[in-house]
């Protein structure tokens, strides 16, 4: 297991270097960030001076070399737009995104698994059909539109919840979070629901098909024959088998929830790091773009590692290492 983890981490270092090179060259090819950020009253000398001050007049290879040299000491550069270290800027915005993604994932799991089980155990019932049809809607409606509808109904129409923003935060172990205050939770509710919708549907469908398959298996029949209650059969034996694919998908999806949070963050003006990335791409703020993608790569590696370890724990037949 140790060699498995070590090999994974070494691979991810290679991915990091390759990714940073691609992003570097890509942003370089688009153009000079100073053409966008510059004060329009500047003259040619000022533009040239500002470009040189950030080292943007150097050849690409030289710029990349300087980046690697600084990266080795843990510095990923200073943002052109915020005048702050890029890493600090992203870490400052990360709690907001992680909180939103975690809330969305919790909603998806806590509602999705039981709904899916229900639909899988009783596929022909009215409830089962409703869940199945509902999950198709949840899949196919665009997040952007659903978000606006949620705002129109719950904020503008009913006036129950705030339209946007993060609201007041409470410090929890030094990290600002929303979920510890009523006002914070009210701000979190709509964006989390909006972000959860897709995965809620996905997990419900996964759990449903997993449960339908399991119900036909011999061990379920034996369990029933043994006289176990239906509740124990579904709640323990079926559930355990359903959880393996759900855990794998939920883990991978957690990464994409963080990545796709950007749409929800934009609609609800949620100050997360996805919004930071979009703003940074908008002004070619290369240090932030590169640092963000580095952090996301690391995050995906860690999540995938955790999912593999979790899967082997849930199902001892899965072996780590050999050809992973």
């Amino acid at each position, binding site marked *: 297991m140790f060699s498995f983890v070590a090999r994974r981490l070494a691979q991810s270092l290679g991915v990091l270097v390759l990714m940073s090179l691609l992003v570097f060259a890509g942003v370089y090819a688009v153009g000079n960030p100073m053409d966008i950020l510059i004060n329009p009253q*500047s003259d*040619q000398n000022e533009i040239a001076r500002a470009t040189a001050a950030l080292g943007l007049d150097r050849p690409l290879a030289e710029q990349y070399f300087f980046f690697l040299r600084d990266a080795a000491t843990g510095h990923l550069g200073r943002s052109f737009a915020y*005048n702050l270290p890029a890493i600090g800027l992203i870490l400052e*915005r990360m709690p907001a995104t992680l909180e939103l993604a975690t809330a969305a994932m919790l909603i998806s799991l806590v509602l999705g698994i039981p709904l899916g089980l229900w639909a899988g155990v009783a596929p022909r019932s009215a409830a089962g059909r409703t869940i199945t049809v509902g999950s198709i809607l949840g899949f196919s409606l665009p997040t952007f539109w659903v978000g606006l509808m949620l705002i129109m109904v719950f904020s*503008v129409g009913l006036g129950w919840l705030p339209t946007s923003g993060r609201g007041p935060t409470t410090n929890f172990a030094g990290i600002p979070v929303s979920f510890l205050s009523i006002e914070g939770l009210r701000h979190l509710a709509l964006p989390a629901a909006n972000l959860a919708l897709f995965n809620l549907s996905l997990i419900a469908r996964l759990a449903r098909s997993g449960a339908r398959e399991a119900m036909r298996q011999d061990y379920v029949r034996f369990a029933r024959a043994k006289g176990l209650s239906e509740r124990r059969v579904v709640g323990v034996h079926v559930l355990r088998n359903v959880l393996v694919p759900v855990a794998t998908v939920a883990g991978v999806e957690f990464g994409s929830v963080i990545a796709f949070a950007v749409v929800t963050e*934009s609609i609800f003006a949620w100050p997360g790091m996805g919004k930071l990335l979009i703003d940074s791409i*908008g002004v070619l703020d290369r240090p932030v773009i590169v640092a963000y993608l580095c952090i996301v790569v690391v995050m995906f590696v860690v999540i995938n590692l955790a999912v593999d370890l979790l899967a082997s724990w849930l199902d001892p037949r899965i072996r780590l290492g050999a050809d992973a």
Partner: protein
Amino acid sequence: MRRALRILVAGSILWATLTHAADLRVGLAADVTSMDPHFLDLQPNVNIGWHVFDALTHVDEDSRLIPGLAASWRALDATTWEFRLRRGVRFHDGSELTAEDVVFSIERTLQVPAGQFRPFSQRIVAKEIPDPYTIRLRTAVPYAMVPYDLDSVFIVSKTAAAGARSEDFDSGKAMIGTGPFRFVRFARGDRVELARNHSYWGGAPPWDRVTFRIVPTDPARLAGLLSGDLDLIEQVPTADLPRIRRDAKIETAQKVSWRTIFFHLDQRERAPGITDKAGKPLARNPFRDVRVRHALSMAIDRQTIAGRLMDGAALPASNLVSPPVFGYAPDLKPDPYDPEGAKRLLAEAGYTDGFAMTLSATSNRYVNDEQIAQAVAQMFARVGVRARVEAFPVNVYLPRGARGELAFAMLGWGSFSADLALRSLVATADAKKGFGAFNWSGYSNPKVDELLERAFATVDEKARETLAREAMRTAMRDVAVIPLHHQVTTWAMRRPLAYAPRTDEFTFAHHVRPR
């Protein structure tokens, strides 16, 4: 009992109106990146700066220069400006504003790494302080724009900002100004909170607390206003104007912006991508012929674009600056829509069959930019010029324009004065003089250059405005660029609030009245 109840009800109503009247929540349309007033010259950053800080000179709602921290100023000679400070102005920490703070602030604009306010201070070569309330500033050559440039230099406290980095402004440590509001909190990407400065020299503002919420998504900002989360929003999308006007709870305020939308036409020997209709490159660049430039201007139906596409939130343009701005030439009139005349002019110039070109525009910068480009392309088709529209996000567009890759390109520009706008956009590109930094057209007219040089060297405002107008007339009659329209900015607020709308598009909480 009944009386007690009445008092209670009256009291709670009074309390409700009082708390309501004292808090203001404003929805900003773009992200504020830094609190450092000498870092980036971006509209949202400067907007917050104007609440906490002040400058020696201000501009009024029409973008005309008025006294700020300097009660008066005059040119002692062609290269020396003297500013007299208002007496008794205090910083938020209680210390008094002196000339030392002014000199420190001017110097800081030159020192902030990657700071963008150098263009406003780099021409000042010497600073003198004859007494604590007087500053004399010298320039190397006669330069009339010193009082204008200083409108962009925020005055910070020397004690609070000595050695401060941008981080110290973000945290509030160095956010000590003389402005109408004290800094409370900056939550990046989310909000900026401010509190009333009771001893503001211009009179205490009507709001105890002001929260600027950053809500760049248009529908979300509007929803915030409709639901009562926000009291006032800026940059109302034009498509929502009819709907908002019907809402009895909402009031709007509009004003012509200093942002003028125009088209650059590449007038160098060769312009990229101009061909005949079969796709064969043309022998000469048609844009070098003033008849072709004039014909294209006449082919644009500005009234229809302003009325239909912009829902009235645009003013057809004849100048590169909007009507209230210094140096606007009122005798110029927008070219009337005349497709037949345009065809005649094109035929005269030898383009009976027209030609084909690419019309470039931004897709996310100016109001309805991409739709405007489509509309203009269709209007060109009616006079026989085939324009293929390509729209890019601004991060791709501006670098391409700067590299000279766009033949016919939309751009928007806001300026304090006509001579400034012409200097950047139309003057012959010359790095030594700092002329023509954004002259994508490659336009060059010695007469315009000469008029501009004379304007910048003329410290008498009346004489300078005459020169600036003459330069504007000369460039526009030569169709150096094709002006399209001046945007009209819309603010929307919950009644009974009132806002005095501004040409410079800023949203000032201290100018929002509870009424």
